[in-house]
């Protein structure tokens, strides 16, 4: 008989637990025992119910099989204990006897009418059993609350259902043939839906979880790749050139810029807008010459097809190169602004400066690459410098307001 030791009592503080199939004391699959533990009944009662239902239309067998499939086995250490074959034989004998009795008296034929109820009941049971305790509580309290809250509506609904049912029964006299089949179909489909619902819900939840996990893993992989490819690489390089302060600074700066872009900057196409292009050029020249270039951008505009802004950018690059190479300034400030119909770029250093008039005529850097280029494209360039005062190059270009 039922071995009470094996029926694990629900732990204190956990009013509901998932139904399990215990290994110890099982007769077939442990379903009846599990169900008994869940419903706090004697397993014998459950077994008898199963036998009875199996005889009447075979529903018990189906229900048992379904429950066997969906209920997890209770974890059990060691060799699975042998079944109590004598008990099994006793229940089989009862079943066979009942079946014979039913067959002889014809009672089992009425069993088809029980099918919808049986399926519905099993479905509900499964739904209940699959749901987690929190949701069960929620269902119960939700249902009672909504009934209490909407008494009129509930009453109306019940009345409608009853009226509909009565009407259906009255008409059924005529639609007897079709009605029976339709009703059974509806019941079976409903039962299947009820059975499948928790499983589908569980599957969906699992899928979502898996997707979230995958996204997280991808993100982690991206961060790891970023840290590995750039940060670790740079740190290694810095250790190797530790004696060269300038190179160390350059490496650290480049890495810092990279990391900042990655952290804060929206993915930008460096060839699409003025601000993005100025940032890219400043980064390239900073890398090439090892002098920090601070960039501040206000407003922005798409690069024009006529190449006027491209010319301005080239002039700006030349100004940065000059400042980085000749000014001996510890840092360079670049300010790009688009306001109204004018784009402006300032390149300023605090270096040694020079006498503009004393620049030899054959030196093309400022005269041609900056001033000449800007003027050819309809813009203007102004250079302010004095020995010891640093240099500022100002480039302006008319743009079409966007």
């Amino acid at each position, binding site marked *: 008989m039922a071995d009470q030791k094996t029926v694990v009592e629900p732990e204190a503080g956990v009013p509901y637990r998932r139904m399990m199939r215990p290994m110890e004391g099982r007769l077939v699959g442990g379903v009846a025992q599990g169900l008994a533990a869940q419903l706090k009944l004697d397993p014998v009662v459950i077994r008898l119910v199963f036998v009875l239902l199996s005889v009447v239309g075979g529903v018990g067998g189906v229900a048992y099989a379904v429950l066997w499939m969906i209920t997890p086995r209770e974890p059990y250490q060691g060799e699975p204990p042998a079944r109590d074959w004598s008990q099994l034989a006793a229940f089989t004998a009862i079943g066979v006897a009942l079946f014979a009795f039913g067959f002889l008296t014809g009672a089992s034929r009425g069993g088809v009418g029980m099918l919808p109820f049986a399926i519905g009941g099993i479905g509900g049971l499964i739904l209940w059993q699959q749901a987690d305790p929190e949701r069960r509580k929620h269902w119960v309290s939700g249902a009672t609350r909504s009934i209490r809250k909407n008494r009129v509506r509930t009453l109306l609904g019940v009345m409608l259902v009853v009226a509909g049912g009565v009407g259906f029964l009255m008409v059924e006299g005529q639609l007897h043939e079709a009605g029976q089949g339709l009703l059974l179909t509806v019941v079976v489909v409903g039962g299947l839906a009820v059975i499948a619902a928790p499983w589908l819900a569980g599957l969906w939840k699992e899928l979502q979880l898996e997707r979230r996990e995958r996204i997280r893993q991808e993100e982690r992989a991206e961060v790891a790749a970023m840290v590995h490819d750039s940060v670790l690489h740079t740190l290694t390089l810095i250790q190797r050139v530790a004696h060269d302060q300038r190179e160390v600074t350059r490496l650290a700066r480049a890495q810092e810029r990279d990391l900042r872009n990655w952290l804060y900057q929206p993915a930008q196409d460096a060839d699409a807008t003025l601000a993005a292009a100025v940032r890219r050029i400043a980064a390239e020249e900073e890398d090439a010459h090892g002098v920090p270039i601070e960039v501040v*951008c206000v407003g922005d505009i798409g690069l024009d097809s006529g190449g006027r802004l491209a010319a301005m950018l080239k002039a700006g690059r030349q100004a940065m190169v000059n400042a980085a190479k000749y000014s001996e300034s510890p840092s360079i400030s670049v*300010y790009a*602004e688009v306001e109204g119909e004018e784009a402006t770029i300032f390149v300023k250093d605090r270096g040694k400066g020079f006498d503009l008039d004393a620049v030899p005529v054959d030196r093309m850097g400022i005269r041609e690459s900056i001033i000449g280029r800007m003027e050819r494209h309809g813009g203007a360039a102004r250079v302010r410098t004095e020995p010891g005062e640093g240099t500022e190059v100002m480039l302006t270009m008319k743009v079409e307001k966007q």
Partner: protein
Amino acid sequence: MTRVLIVDDHRLFRSGVRAELGDSIEVVGEAEDVDSAVKAIAELRPDVVLLDVHMPGGGGQEVLRRVLGSGSQVCFLALSVSDAAEDVIGVIRGGARGYVTKNISGRELTDAIRRVADGDAVFSPRLAGFVLDAFASSEAPSIDPELDSLTQREREVLRLIARGYAYKEIAKELFISVKTVETHVSSVLRKLQLSNRHELSRWATARRLV
């Protein structure tokens, strides 16, 4: 002698700043998180607090909220590696009187501390750029025209800061005194802190410009 409290969760950085600050600055203490910072400010009563933006327990903005919320008059200078727009605008609107990035030189930091201690504002070129961008002309109607827009002079000053000019150079450029430059910058700070300008908050959160 300006008395300074350094609030930063990186010990190395705190000792670095301590070493870099000139003789005219007295570091009276250090704090490494929000709680210890609030406590130290109440106990030590420094003139200026160097405040890190990112810290465990809510960051610089939480310190600002708790200290300034209790009616304290201490001045804050935000100091951070981040120059993301939402961080910069966030601490300024939280009540800091200036924002500088951590790669600032020791001499510049000393200047900035003295300026904040005198009740003036300290704008880095990047912060100036942010403000110009945020207050850029727009068709949206403003609630308070005085607070919600910059004067022509203020724009000029900010533009020069963004171009990398020091206050002294700005004064020379615009033929005004350094004190007037400081007045303009303080006025911009006040607008930045008090303006309900719709674009300002939206801009700071929507754009993750560096």
